[in-house]
């Protein structure tokens, strides 16, 4: 009877994990590190391949790092709002998205330069696109705060429909409006109290005509999206706004429009510490954990006393290998990119596009032919004109705690159209036999991105 209870409890914990118990069991199995060492001779069989792979990565490292830095700099330029939209005297404060909390899809956790004081309520933009407001400044952690996105249920922004050569229509936009005929992942902003105008298309821009106040009006002129009008069942007309940025998972870097500071600078930048060696911890690969049904992972040996957070990136040189699933006192279990179900937001350098493209989240589906990674990609806004395909080099984007931006993932041919696509990514390196890896611990060893 007690055996049945034990089995039932373990089964329940396997399917619906409780983090505290999970960590406890992981600690209980800490001696597994010694067991892995016992089977080391099996690993030595692929020693030559490991040395060769490490040599290849090292030789290409400088080139990849320089490419990634250039990409991040291009991204920085692309999120900078156009000068004509910024009210005179305002500061542009660059910030990166460090986390999207599960269950709070309409919020972003962001990080900006620590010494910069900001107040809640200021607009948050990406290029000429308006994405929301700074809703909270973390009192305990300088340079951290939360953004409430325009998709939030209670979010409202005054807006104006820009119609060339005619009067402008005023409306209120905010929150999501879904229709059951929408394709999966389709994202539209709701229009509240539309005016009597007859225009059925055009660009919708922020215009705080309700007197939102000083900070709200700073975003006047920024783009909310394009007006979409369609006839639905029953002959009714449905009007809503289609954002031209992927607000669901394609926001990695944003700009806050902040009031001027006396004698202060007009732009506050933020460096990405991706390739700062002090943010990484070297670890040896104890075992490769390939199992049935295509599951794939690694077990890393950790130095005792070093805290590694769950979800942290694991890299082989400048190449992303995977993410830490659980970290015990002396070992960490890692899910590699070929493990089904790993979710990653990616930034792409797409051939023919001037700026990097935040393509949003991809979900891994295991290994494809010739060692390629099979991923499912839900393209929310498409790329460029939305037609055909384009070769692209993929790097990590932002918004995942513990995964820095700009690590190389691989090369792929991306469809430009909106929709759900199956994509094959050719990894930049053959890491199947790697015997060393780096774990992200973040600036100051905190793994906080």
């Amino acid at each position, binding site marked *: 009877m007690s*055996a*049945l209870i*034990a*089995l039932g409890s*373990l*089964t329940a*914990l*396997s*399917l*619906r*994990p409780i983090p505290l*118990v*999970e960590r406890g*069991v*992981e600690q*209980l*199995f800490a*001696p*597994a*590190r010694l*067991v*892995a060492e*016992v*089977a080391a001779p*099996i*690993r030595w*069989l692929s020693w030559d391949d490991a040395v060769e792979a490490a040599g290849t990565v090292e030789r290409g490292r400088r080139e990849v790092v320089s490419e990634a830095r250039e990409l991040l700099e291009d991204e920085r330029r692309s999120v900078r709002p156009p000068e004509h939209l910024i009210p005179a005297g305002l500061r542009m404060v660059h910030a990166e998205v460090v986390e999207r909390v599960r269950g709070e899809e309409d919020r972003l956790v962001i990080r900006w330069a620590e010494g910069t004081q900001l107040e809640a309520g200021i607009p948050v933009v990406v290029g000429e696109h308006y994405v929301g407001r700074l809703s909270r400044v973390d009192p305990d952690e300088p340079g951290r705060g939360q953004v409430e996105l325009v998709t939030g249920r209670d979010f409202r922004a005054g807006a104006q429909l820009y119609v060339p050569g005619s009067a402008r229509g005023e409306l209120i936009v905010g929150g999501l409006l879904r229709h059951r005929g929408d394709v999966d992942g389709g994202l539209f902003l709701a229009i509240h109290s539309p005016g009597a105008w007859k225009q059925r298309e055009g660009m919708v821009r922020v215009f705080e005509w309700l007197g939102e106040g000083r900070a709200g009006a700073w975003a006047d002129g920024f783009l909310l999206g394009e007006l979409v009008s369609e006839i639905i069942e029953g002959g009714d007309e449905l009007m809503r706004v289609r954002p031209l940025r992927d607000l669901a998972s394609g926001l990695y870097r944003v700009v806050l429009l902040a009031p001027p500071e006396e004698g202060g600078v007009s732009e506050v930048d933020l460096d990405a510490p991706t390739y700062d060696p002090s943010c990484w911890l070297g670890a040896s690969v*104890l*075992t*490769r*954990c*390939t*199992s*049935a*049904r*295509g*599951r*794939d*992972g690694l*077990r890393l040996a950790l130095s005792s006393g070093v805290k590694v957070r769950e979800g942290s990136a694991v890299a082989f040189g400048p190449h992303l290998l995977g993410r830490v*699933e*659980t970290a015990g006192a002396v*070992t960490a*279990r*890692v*899910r590699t990119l070929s*493990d*089904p*179900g*790993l979710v990653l937001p990616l930034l792409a350098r797409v051939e023919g596009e001037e700026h990097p493209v935040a393509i949003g989240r991809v*979900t*891994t*589906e*295991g*290994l494809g032919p010739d060692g390629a990674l099979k991923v499912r990609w839900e393209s929310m806004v498409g790329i460029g004109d939305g037609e055909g395909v384009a070769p692209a080099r993929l790097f990590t984007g932002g918004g995942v705690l513990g995964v820095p931006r700009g690590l190389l993932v691989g090369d792929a041919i991306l469809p430009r159209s909106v929709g759900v696509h199956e994509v094959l990514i050719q990894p930049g390196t053959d890491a*199947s036999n790697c015997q060393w890896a780096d774990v992200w611990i973040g600036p100051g060893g905190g793994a906080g991105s």
Partner: protein
Amino acid sequence: MDRAWGRRWLLSLSHIGAWLVALVWFAWASAIDTQLMLGGETSYWVPSLGVALLVAWAVRMEVGTLWALACLAALAKVSFSVEPPVAILAGNLAVVMLVRFGRRSFDLSRPLARSLVAGVVAGGWLFWTWLVLYARHGEGAHPSWEVLMQAATSTGLLTLFLGGVFAKLPGARVLLARRSLR
């Protein structure tokens, strides 16, 4: 008195040694399994050495020590598996419970019976790992009957032909000395 105490001490020492050797065998079996699984799609035809070893020993071992065997095999497998330890432990406990239940009515140590058990366990293990992945991450393709049969057949055949050899591995003799079948 001293002689009896010394014999007991030696006996328990040899048992501890045998368990440690068993741990090494399980670790090697798991390590070899991992290397063989790197073959991608064809890996479903690759038998699971770890499962074959666990079943080959579980059908012969004293029933009271089966729980220890499950924990030991789990400890070895955890190092080579991306599945969470709690799921591996649950899987191994289920295996020894199945064996324990089966031994009440059948002599599972016979070649055909043990290969049948190994086949069921190999297929069941595939299904269990998919279930855990799906429950935790909502991803992973449901294993088809074909895949389950491939895994079951190859592991069953391995146990059929090598199950007897596994029972004679160094260190196994002490653990598999039968005092009771039930």
